[in-house]
């Protein structure tokens, strides 16, 4: 009875996960870029199975405000097929490594019309059940300054200068105090020497008279 239960549980554990496996695809959530620059859209996946030779990657593009998607990239049978008719002809390059489950593409020379959603779909046979993942591309004319950066910078600089001035002031006071202290020591030493010389002066003439007597 117990052995039957053990065998059944091992078999069930062996079968069930295979059926509930699904491929999980990762892309970014949102990407910002400047007009005229290049951007790399990354796509990778997680699968319980080894990476098969028939792994496929495909990218589709949906412009902002449009409902239609257009396919712009497909990798299958070990060969990448790049868009040569659509909006990204001559601007798309495959920079991924399918062996390492990386299906990233490089978009060159971005334009304002490239604003939109890019969807990556990867399949790793026999693991083909999965949800494609999307990344939104935003193209800017110039990078907007984040709120509070300049505020923080000005406040930081002024307070930093204040702290610096206070530190320098106390440092100067400390140094001058030390110098004053050492000055008075040397003066005191000089005074001592002069005083002893004066005392020695009148003493010698007195001695010969004493010795004579």
């Amino acid at each position, binding site marked *: 009875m117990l052995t039957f239960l053990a065998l059944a549980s091992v078999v069930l554990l062996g079968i069930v996960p295979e059926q509930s496996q699904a491929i999980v695809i990762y892309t970014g959530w949102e990407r910002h870029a400047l007009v005229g620059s290049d951007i790399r859209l990354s796509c990778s996946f997680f699968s319980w199975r080894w990476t098969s030779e028939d792994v496929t990657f495909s990218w589709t593009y949906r412009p902002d405000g449009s409902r239609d998607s257009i396919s712009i990239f497909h990798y299958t049978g070990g060969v990448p097929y790049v868009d040569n008719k659509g909006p990204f002809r001559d601007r798309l390059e495959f920079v991924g490594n399918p062996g390492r489950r990386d299906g990233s593409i490089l978009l060159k020379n971005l334009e304002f019309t490239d604003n939109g959603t890019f969807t990556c779909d990867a399949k790793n046979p026999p693991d083909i059940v999965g949800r494609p993942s999307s990344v939104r591309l935003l193209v800017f004319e110039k990078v*907007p*300054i*984040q*709120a*509070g*950066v*300049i*505020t*923080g*910078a*000005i*406040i930081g600089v*002024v*307070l930093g200068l204040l702290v610096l001035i206070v530190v320098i002031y106390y440092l100067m006071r400390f140094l001058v105090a030390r110098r004053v202290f050492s000055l008075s020591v040397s003066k005191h030493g000089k005074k001592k020497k002069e005083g002893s010389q004066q005392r020695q002066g009148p003493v010698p003439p007195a001695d010969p008279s004493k010795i004579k007597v």
Partner: protein
Amino acid sequence: MLLLLLGIILLHLAALVLLFVSTIVSVWSTSETSTSDLWRNCSTAVNGEYHCNPASTGEWIQAVQAVMILSIIFSCLSLLLFFCQLFTLQKGGRFFLTGTFQILASLFVMSGAIIYTVTSHYWVLGTYAFGYSYILAWVAFPLALISGLIYVILRKRE
């Protein structure tokens, strides 16, 4: 003597309170349907909704924000220094440090108000008039300046 001390402290506190109100309350410029300040633009839409947006991330408004905050910080520091110096300064000494900080605070308010006056059309759209927080900032400037000058000429007695 005590009366003089109280008067000076009240003047300083008045300037400080004006600075706080001016920086925090949202009425630097007003128009018929909206008010805006250093931190956000609030407007009443046509259907009666009251809706606030964060102030645009422009360079000049951030500079005004920073300068107003700095003036508050310097004014508070000057108040603390006043109490410190009250007990530690030797007889006949002047409250130079306190006065310096207070004068710096007043200069910051002045520059903040000037920058806002000159560049406010960049982020307040439409026709607008200046609100009472703006006026309070301009009033805080001479109060702080006078307070700082009083500190500089004041001498400590026994």
